[in-house]
């Protein structure tokens, strides 16, 4: 009983993270019902992954920029511009894909460096610089394309957008075995990592999540991954872009948590002055963040172009909004200092499922935009509401709000927020 209450108390203190998870599940269930099961059909799940991959790639860079307290409005235009550059390089100049892809990423880095210079070293707010960038690179896209689309692209590049890993069974099996191996292996790796982390936290006397929550959370993640694996495997296997995305998520999560660069990013967003006075080269970090954003935007542009098999003048329009929304829905703080790559991915998936589900239902872009806008507003609104509740005096006060606390004279048995291995109260 007390374990249950402890878990409840914990859940309220993590309302945000729990909420986003529950929201994703509810949205999936809702559209699964509304679309008569089309949403989770193998082919549609594959589509969902491929369709959202470039938004998710952008969201990785975006959440990092947001954690540092900045914003980037130009990523859609940069993605479009790189698509155009790729078109010129590959179709017009006849460059090989293995030369064009690194060249495009380099151009992305230069674009990022251009913006990073103005933001970090000149000190113009990122909002302004990237708003200008949004116009500049859209303009350059149109100039590069001479207002006409470039098509078609060779198959090697198109594989980046719509290709799949080879079927090792040679098409004889119902399930694509490479996908099953990757999916099961990945799930096992995630569970192993979670258990390891929990052990380490116990070893160092840090608070752990209640066992029940830990088990439910990881069990759920595992089941979810296995379901997706099964669905992908029963269609055409693993999209190549999913592998790219998975590698990016792993690398960037590690980077943000464990590298000096990542730590400095959080420090800058949390308190710029304190970061400066701690010897962190804040300008350099900011500059690099935007270079990184440029590279990721270039990659997103390549994936998008590959998927459409054409570089288009309007390519990438609105991507910035979807990726910013993904980061904020995924728990990034508007003031900076808070956010995770994983959260941004979940936020991106929520946006993606909404897009996909509403498209299947035949809702026009008018209603799609309306609903997506409201979801963003609600998600951040909920965040702020939650923060105001909890900010009042340490810990969550949601419990009090919902009268979960015992009313009889509060004794020492007052519900603890979480198990505290060290019996010292913070004053």
């Amino acid at each position, binding site marked *: 009983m007390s374990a249950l209450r402890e878990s409840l108390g914990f859940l309220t203190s993590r309302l945000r993270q729990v909420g986003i998870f529950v929201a994703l599940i509810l949205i999936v269930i809702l559209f699964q019902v509304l679309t008569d099961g089309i949403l989770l059909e193998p082919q549609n799940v594959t589509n969902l992954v491929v369709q959202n991959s470039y938004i998710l790639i952008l969201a990785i860079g975006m959440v990092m920029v947001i954690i540092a307290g900045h914003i980037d409005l130009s990523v859609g235009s940069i993605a479009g511009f790189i698509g155009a550059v790729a078109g010129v390089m590959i179709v017009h100049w006849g460059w090989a894909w293995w030369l064009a892809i690194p060249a495009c990423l380099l151009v992305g880095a230069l674009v990022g460096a251009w913006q990073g210079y103005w933001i970090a070293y000149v000190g113009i707010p990122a909002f302004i610089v990237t708003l200008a960038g949004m116009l500049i690179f859209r303009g350059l896209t149109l100039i590069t394309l001479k207002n006409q689309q470039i098509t078609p692209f060779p198959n090697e590049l198109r594989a980046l957008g719509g290709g799949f890993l080879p079927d090792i069974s040679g098409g004889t099996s119902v399930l694509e075995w490479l996908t099953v191996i990757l999916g099961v292996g990945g799930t096992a790796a995630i569970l192993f990592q979670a258990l390891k982390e929990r052990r380490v936290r116990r070893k*160092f006397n840090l608070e752990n999540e209640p066992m029940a929550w830990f088990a439910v959370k990881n069990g759920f993640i595992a089941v979810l991954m296995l379901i997706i694996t099964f669905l992908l495997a029963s269609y055409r296997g693993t999209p190549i872009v999913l592998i790219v995305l998975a590698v990016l998520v792993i690398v960037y999560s590690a980077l943000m948590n*464990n590298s*000096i660069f990542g730590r400095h990013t959080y420090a800058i967003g949390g308190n710029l002055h304190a970061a400066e006075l701690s010897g962190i080269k804040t300008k350099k970090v900011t500059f690099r963040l935007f270079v990184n954003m440029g590279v990721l935007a270039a990659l997103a542009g390549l994936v998008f172009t590959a998927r459409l098999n054409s570089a288009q003048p309007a390519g990438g329009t609105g991507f910035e909004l979807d990726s910013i929304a993904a980061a904020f829905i995924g728990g990034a703080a508007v003031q900076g200092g808070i956010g995770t790559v994983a959260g941004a991915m979940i936020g991106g998936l929520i946006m993606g499922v909404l897009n996909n589900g509403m498209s299947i239902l035949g809702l026009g872009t008018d209603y799609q935009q309306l609903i997506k806008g409201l979801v963003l507003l609600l998600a951040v609104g909920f965040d702020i509401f939650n923060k105001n509740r909890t900010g009042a005096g340490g810990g969550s006060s949601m419990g*009090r709000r919902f009268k979960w606390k015992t009313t009889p004279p509060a004794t020492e048995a007052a519900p603890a927020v979480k198990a505290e291995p060290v019996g*010292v109260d913070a004053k």
Partner: protein
Amino acid sequence: MNVPILQMRGITKTFPGVKALQDVTLDVNRGEVHAICGENGAGKSTLMKVLSGVYAHNTFDGDILFENEPCEFSSITDSEKRGIVIIHQELALSPYLSIAENIYLGNELANKGWVDWRKTNLEAAKLLARVGLSENPVTPIQHISVGKQQLVEIAKALSKEVKLLILDEPTAALNDEDSDHLLDLILHLKGQGVTSIIISHKLNEIRKVADAVTIIRDGKSIETLRLDQGQITQERIIRGMVGRDLESLYPDRTPNIGEEVLRIEDWTVQHPQDHARTVVNNASLNVRKGEVVGLAGLMGAGRTELAMSVFGRTYGRAVSGKVYKYGQEINTSTVSDAIEHGIAYATEDRKHYGLNLIEDIKRNISMAALNKLAKRGWVDGNKETTVANQYRKSMNIKAPSVAAITGKLSGGNQQKVVLSKWMFSDPDVLILDEPTRGIDVGAKFEIYTIIAELAAAGKAVIVISSELPELLGICDRIYTLSAGHITGEVPIAEATQETLMHFMTQEKE
């Protein structure tokens, strides 16, 4: 004579897992100045938030009687209607608005929705006269000093026809002169029938103005001392606050002073905006191994500016002068250069410049020296936790674990995190700017002990402080600054508050 104006009975306020207040009683008589004392985190501010309606009446247990009527406030507006006004430690003024606009902010003198500027400025001028502030009401707030801004806050309170004025650490950011003025004003208002509750750490101020002192410790009201019963003495208050007698406010230490570590020569710094102003003028000083050197000066003397300009040019422009370490000239023109040369600067404003308040203890401690925990750019998280746990133990940081968010710690514990951060960067010279500001008596002693240990470990320590007794208690040598000049260098044996004050107020041509 002793008519109660406020009675708080059995106030209990719980946050999940923490009992902030437990059965607290507070009786304030009409027309008195009532001080509330207690260590940081004891529950003083929580109590005042309960009283002023920041915490709505249904979120705590207990009764509040104001002028013999029960109060059920849901917000600050409710309490202000009854004449209870709270002035927070961090002033709530808008820097770009004028004094008069700030006074009537949210309470505008308007006619059918249109502000009556003439009346606003006239009434504001009257209020300014009442608080003894001779400024034009149309002056923007940002152009007047913090001390004067505090007076504007009080004028604002008066405009709301205040009966009970609550001041949370009103003199924390003020220099001595402004503090004196403020305390006089509180006494003056008392003469006009305004009752005040004042939260303060400064015991000499409490002795100056308070008619009664209520001591709060660990969320409980310990006792109320009354002046007319001769109970208000420093020893008595300290005993009540820490629950024991403090035989000594400062730790004993035998200095073991070695060679010179850091020497600053002919240091001159210009004001970052006002180019005509020289904030630090031709200052030279040195500090030796194992030595604690004090920097004394009044507000605006240039102490912090001197320290920050040395520490990576983080203040000022056109900085000139030389810094030597062990006799070699060194370059400290960026913070990372300064840190690499073994200099650490712990800021006076830990919330804005010292800590990442939304991050946990371990990541704050590692912030200035992450590379010590990293290999090829990757941080070893386990090592980080181990290091943080060591500091939590050695510095006695009170927190559930090193994964606790620093923003939720008390001031003393936050300061220990800041000190841990700099100790981990393994400096040879530590510059500590107001290391005990906003910290309670018990934690102060701990900080002094840490400083003594640092010196004993062979570090060179420079302490900047506005509290002369503190400098006299912990330093081996004290420099005085006045208007950017070093006006004196006094060995501790010859230093008294009077001699220091003499140098601190000395004008150099």
